[in-house]
C-alpha cells in the first residue's frame, strides 16, 4: 500500500505545467531504479527539481523531461541543426547555432574531406550539420557527415529562404507522423525544407511565391492543432488559387 501511494505521488505532476523550484521526484522513495533525466530537470540531493518552466513529460519506464519552447537553443548530442558560418579559422569554421557558445565545424568533417579539398564557406553561409560533441561547458562541435562518414544531405544549403522559429515549433515540424501543415502543403506544392532543432527552418521551392507561402504557413502553425493547421494551409492555398 505504501508503495502504491508512493507511486501515485511520484507521477501526479506528469503532463502538468511546472515552474522552476517544483519538486517532481523524491529519490528516497525510489530505490534500485535508474531514472533518466532530460532537459529542464536537475538533481538536488535527494530530490529532482525543475529548472525551466514547461510541461513535465514521462516516457515509460523511466525517462523524465520538461517540454518547453524557447528562442535560444541548448546544444545536445546528435541534434541536427542549421548554423551560420561566422568565421574561418585554420582548422575549423566557427558556426553560430543560437546556443550560448559558438560551435566549431572541423574543416575535414565532410565526406571525402582532405586537406586539399577544404570547402570555401564565406561568412554567412547556411550549413545543415549534426552535433557530435556537446558537453555543456565547452564549445560544441559539429560535423557534416552522418555516423558512417557519408554526406547524407548535410552541408551547405543553397538558395531558398531561412527563417527563425522557436525550438518547440522545430520539434513539432520534425515529429512523426508528418506534421499536418507540411502534409497539407505537400499535397499541392512541391518544396524542400530543412529543419534545425535549434529553431531555424530553411525552405526552397521552384518559385518565390511558393517559398513565401510555405514559410508563412509554417510560421503561423505554431500554436494550432492538427485540424486547424490543415484548414489554415488550405485557406492559404485557395487564396493563391493553387487548388
Amino acid at each position, binding site marked *: 500500500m505504501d508503495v502504491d501511494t508512493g507511486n501515485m*505521488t511520484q507521477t501526479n505532476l506528469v503532463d502538468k*505545467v511546472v515552474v*522552476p523550484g*517544483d519538486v*517532481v521526484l523524491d529519490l528516497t522513495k525510489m530505490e534500485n531504479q535508474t531514472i533518466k533525466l532530460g532537459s529542464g530537470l*536537475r538533481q538536488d540531493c535527494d530530490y529532482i527539481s525543475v*529548472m*525551466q518552466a514547461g510541461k513535465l513529460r514521462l516516457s515509460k519506464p523511466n525517462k523524465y523531461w520538461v517540454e518547453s519552447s524557447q528562442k535560444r537553443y541548448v546544444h545536445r548530442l546528435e541534434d541536427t541543426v542549421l548554423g551560420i558560418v561566422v568565421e574561418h579559422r585554420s582548422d575549423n569554421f566557427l558556426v553560430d547555432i543560437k546556443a550560448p557558445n559558438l560551435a566549431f565545424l572541423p574543416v575535414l568533417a565532410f565526406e571525402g574531406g582532405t586537406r586539399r579539398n577544404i570547402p570555401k564557406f564565406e561568412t554567412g553561409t547556411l550549413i545543415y550539420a549534426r552535433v557530435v560533441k556537446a558537453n555543456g561547458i565547452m564549445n560544441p562541435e559539429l560535423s557534416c557527415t552522418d555516423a558512417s562518414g557519408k554526406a547524407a544531405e548535410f552541408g551547405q544549403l543553397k538558395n531558398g529562404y531561412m527563417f527563425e522559429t522557436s525550438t518547440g515549433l522545430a520539434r513539432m515540424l520534425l515529429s512523426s507522423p508528418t506534421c499536418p501543415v507540411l502534409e497539407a502543403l505537400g499535397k499541392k506544392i512541391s518544396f524542400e525544407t530543412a529543419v534545425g532543432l535549434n529553431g531555424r527552418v530553411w525552405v526552397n521551392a521552384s518559385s518565390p511565391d511558393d517559398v513565401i507561402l510555405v514559410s508563412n504557413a509554417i510560421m503561423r502553425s505554431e*500554436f494550432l492543432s492538427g485540424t*486547424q493547421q490543415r484548414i489554415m494551409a488550405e485557406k492559404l492555398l485557395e487564396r493563391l488559387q493553387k487548388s
Partner: protein
Amino acid sequence: MEDRTDGRNANQLRPLGCSRNILNRAHGSARWSQGNTIVLAAVYGPKSGTKKGENPEKASFEVIWKPKTGQIGKQEREYEMILKRTLQSICLVNVHPNTTTSVIVQVVGDDGSLLPCAINASCAALVDAGIPMKHLAVSISCGLMEEGSIILDLTKSEEEKLKAFAYLVFPNSPLSVIDKVHSSKEEPIEHGIITSVSYGAMPVSGYFDCLERGRAASAAISEFLRRSLQKQSSDDASRAAQ
C-alpha cells in the same frame, strides 16, 4: 486604521497583470503591472563571454535599468545592483559558465513599489527565456505606519508620506511531491528571504512584522505567477488562431 487613498485595506494588493513573450527580438520578455506601476523586462542570452571583473566559472548577469524619463543616475545604478544580486541568487550559475545574460528593465509607469514590480517582471522574463533557475522570486513592498500597523503594496504618495518602508523578495512556494509530513523538520522553502531593502528608520519589531505580512502576501503573488505561467500556452493557441 485610516483609509488608504485608493480605498484598499491594509492587506490588499493592487490588481496584478503579467504578460510574457511580448517582444519579438528579445529571447525572453515580460510586462508586469501592479496598479499603475508598469515595468517591461527583456532578457537576452545566454551569450558567450563574460565581462572583465566577473568569474568565468559562473554565468554572469548584466542589468540595465532604463527610467521612464530623465537621465540615468545613482538611483538607477542602485536598482541595477540590487536586481543583479537578486537574479544571481535565484538562477543556477553553474549550468552555462562563461556566459553573460543581459536583463534590460524599462519603466513604463511609476506609481510606487517600482523595485518589487521590476523584480517580478525580470523573474517572469527569465522564465520566458528558459534560463535555468532554482526557484522563482516574488517581491512586495511593505510600509510601517506611525501607529505600528503595516500596509502592503505602496503607491507613490504612500511611500512619500510614510516614515519607513521596505521592499522584500521571497522565494515562491513550490509544488512538491514530497509529503509535507516527511519534511516537516525542515523549514519550507518559502520561509527564506532573498532580498530586503529598507528605507527610513523602523523598530526591529516593526521590521519583523513587515516580514510576516510580506511573506503571507507573497503566497498570493506566487499563486498568480504560477497561474499566468500555466495560462500562457492556452493563450497562445487562441491568439494565433486569429
